[in-house]
């Protein structure tokens, strides 16, 4: 380090890292540097998503980012003592080597999360230096229909859960003659077991802003809204600051890059209703009403927010768009498996040794995800069940871990990919209790508009309570439960009631012994 230069130290301000004491680590670094009279430049980056190593700090030396983790504030003096500002103290027990070479990261194919954890989320210059706004610059030179065509050719499907082709929605909105149209980002990431939207909004918010602006240009909308769940106060802080930064640099606002075309963004915070992750309930909520599901048709692309044509997509969908427009839809479409194209940011959590964010092309197996990346269970006990796709996703047994992670493969196996959350359970899990929890969750979060969901979920809790009290005598109740699930699946207005049977029935199908039935014959 030359005299006068100050070493850059990256300490994440991602809320996961903060929940493990990242702020006190940053304070300890500042205090120790001051005590020693060393100049340091603290950068508060996002998380790279290696959560078992958080708080993971990095020091930039000769263009390389050397990582240490998990760091507690008590470890800070020893890092200084070992000379971590000027060289790689190989012997330090927390040294991880170059961050980018950690196998968990090196084996990923990051498109959406390429910058998360690398840059200062609020620095437009950092964003530009790492390839930001290239998609927007290209989009500004294209007619809307050409932008839509790239998204169509990419075969980008909605990452929020429904996997509906984004290009079809965009084209529908583009084709509406209305003067006023909207772009709405569903950032109500309510599915338990998922955190990719949060990580992206906290770690690379300008990417979401760029993707939404491109969507506005594509369909002819001048106003966008981000509907953010209230459980994410840090994401709100970062998004609000990032919008202001983008506006001040002319990447957002009345006159984007001096082209005379405008796009404004507004963040609206929800109020703790899971159902507002359903797109029509979210639109009702954005209009200031109860978050009640709407009948479709009309679809939001034709009549959405305030009755106007509205593109509604999830955070990760919009965040995939800048790369698609920059490099062309065909390049994106080269990646993936079957009809699931591109990359999918998977979120690995629950009882797993190395939880985190894993962005890979579709087609990875659950086994590769959980063992090669995740390192198996955290408890060290045998893995018994995996829930894929959030609270409405199926429970799969250990014998099914060779399932490929793509939309069709999971659907064929009686599950869904949803928002890409994967939660691991060891052999202490009680699947009948988890089935009861699924019904309880539906009862708590039902909007109440349709009867199967509103009443059926409560009856489901009662039935499963009886099963749990006396599993040996559950036979008749389980028949009723199957009928009830049929009714919910066939008669509900939206995915909440319609898919609550999925965790319940998959638990019963794959783990009958937890419901007082004979265990399935010898599992491989």
């Amino acid at each position: 380090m030359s005299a006068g230069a100050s070493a850059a130290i990256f300490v994440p301000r991602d809320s996961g890292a903060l929940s493990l004491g990242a702020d006190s680590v940053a304070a300890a670094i500042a205090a120790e540097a001051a005590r020693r009279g060393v100049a340091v430049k603290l950068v508060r980056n996002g998380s790279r998503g290696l959560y078992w190593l958080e708080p993971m700090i990095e020091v930039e030396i000769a263009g390389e980012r050397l990582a240490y983790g998990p760091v507690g504030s008590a470890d800070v003096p020893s890092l200084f003592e070992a000379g971590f500002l000027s060289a790689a103290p190989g012997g330090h027990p927390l040294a991880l080597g170059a961050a980018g070479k950690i196998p968990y990261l090196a084996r990923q194919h990051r498109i959406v999360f390429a910058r998360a954890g690398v840059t200062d989320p609020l620095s437009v210059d950092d964003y530009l230096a790492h390839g930001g706004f290239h998609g927007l610059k290209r989009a500004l030179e294209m007619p809307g229909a050409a932008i839509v065509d790239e998204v169509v050719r990419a075969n980008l499907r909605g990452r929020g859960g429904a996997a509906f082709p984004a290009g079809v929605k965009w084209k529908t909105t583009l084709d509406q003659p209305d003067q006023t149209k909207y772009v709405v980002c569903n950032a109500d990431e309510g599915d338990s077991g998922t955190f990719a939207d949060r990580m992206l909004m906290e770690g690379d918010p300008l990417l979401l802003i760029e993707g939404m602006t491109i969507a506005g240009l594509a369909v002819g909308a001048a106003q966008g809204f981000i509907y953010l769940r209230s459980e994410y106060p840090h994401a709100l802080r970062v998004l609000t600051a990032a919008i202001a930064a983008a506006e001040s640099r002319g990447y957002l606002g009345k006159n984007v890059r001096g082209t005379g075309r405008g796009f404004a963004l507004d963040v609206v915070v929800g109020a703790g209703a899971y159902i507002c992750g359903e797109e029509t309930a979210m639109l009702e909520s954005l209009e200031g009403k109860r978050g009640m599901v709407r009948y479709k048709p009309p679809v939001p692309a034709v009549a959405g927010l305030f009755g106007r044509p509205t593109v509604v997509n999830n955070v990760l969908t919009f965040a995939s768009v800048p790369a698609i427009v920059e490099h062309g839809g065909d390049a994106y479409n080269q990646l993936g498996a079957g009809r699931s194209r591109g990359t999918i940011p998977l979120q690995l959590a629950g009882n797993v040794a190395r939880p985190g964010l894993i962005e890979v092309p579709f087609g990875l197996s659950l086994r590769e995800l959980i063992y090669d990346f995740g390192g198996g269970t955290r408890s060290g006990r045998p893995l018994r069940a995996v829930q894929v796709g959030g609270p409405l996703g199926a429970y799969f047994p250990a014998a099914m871990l060779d399932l490929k992670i793509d939309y069709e493969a999971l659907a064929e196996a009686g599950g869904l990919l949803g928002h890409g959350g994967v939660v691991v359970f060891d052999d202490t899990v009680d699947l009948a209790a988890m089935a009861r929890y699924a019904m309880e969750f539906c009862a708590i979060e039902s909007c109440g508009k349709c009867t199967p969901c509103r009443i059926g979920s409560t009856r489901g809790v009662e039935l499963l309570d009886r099963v749990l009290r006396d599993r040996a005598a559950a036979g008749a109740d389980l028949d009723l439960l199957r009928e009830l699930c049929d009714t919910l699946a066939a008669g509900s207005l939206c995915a909440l009631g319609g898919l609550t049977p999925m965790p319940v029935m998959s638990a019963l199908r794959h783990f009958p012994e937890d419901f007082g039935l004979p265990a399935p014959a010898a599992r491989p």
Partner: protein
Amino acid sequence: MDSAETWNKDAVAAIVAALKDAPGALLRILRRVQDDLGWVPPPALPMIAHGLNLSRAEVHGVASFYHDFRHTPPARNVIRLCRAESCQALGAEALARHVRSRLGVGFGGTTADRSFALEAVYCLGNCACSPAGVINGHLLGRLTPEAFDDALESLVRR
């Protein structure tokens, strides 16, 4: 934050005046009242209805729909524990038993002296650091009963 059964009428009036023309004004107003006052006092609803030219029933319908809006003054300390799957997979139920007995209150309850309220939450987006919880707005991860007690000690408002 008001801890008595009184509420700041002027603050609500100012919020209504500031936000009444925003798109989807009612949710934004209720959100701001909740954030600033710590609760949505039921007597404020007619005021909000008047400001937006809505019926009291419409405003009540929205205020009562969302889990976040409290209709009684908040406790001095609000503890939220995640009860979703990932946290369950790592001992959230045992943690919940500890917290309930430590605070002497169940989920949805407030202690008689209004010092603690315990709330269930379904996912804080901190699943990779399960089990997760929140003490007075501070997100916590990898909680154990001991870690919870330590955090409570440093974050509690007395």
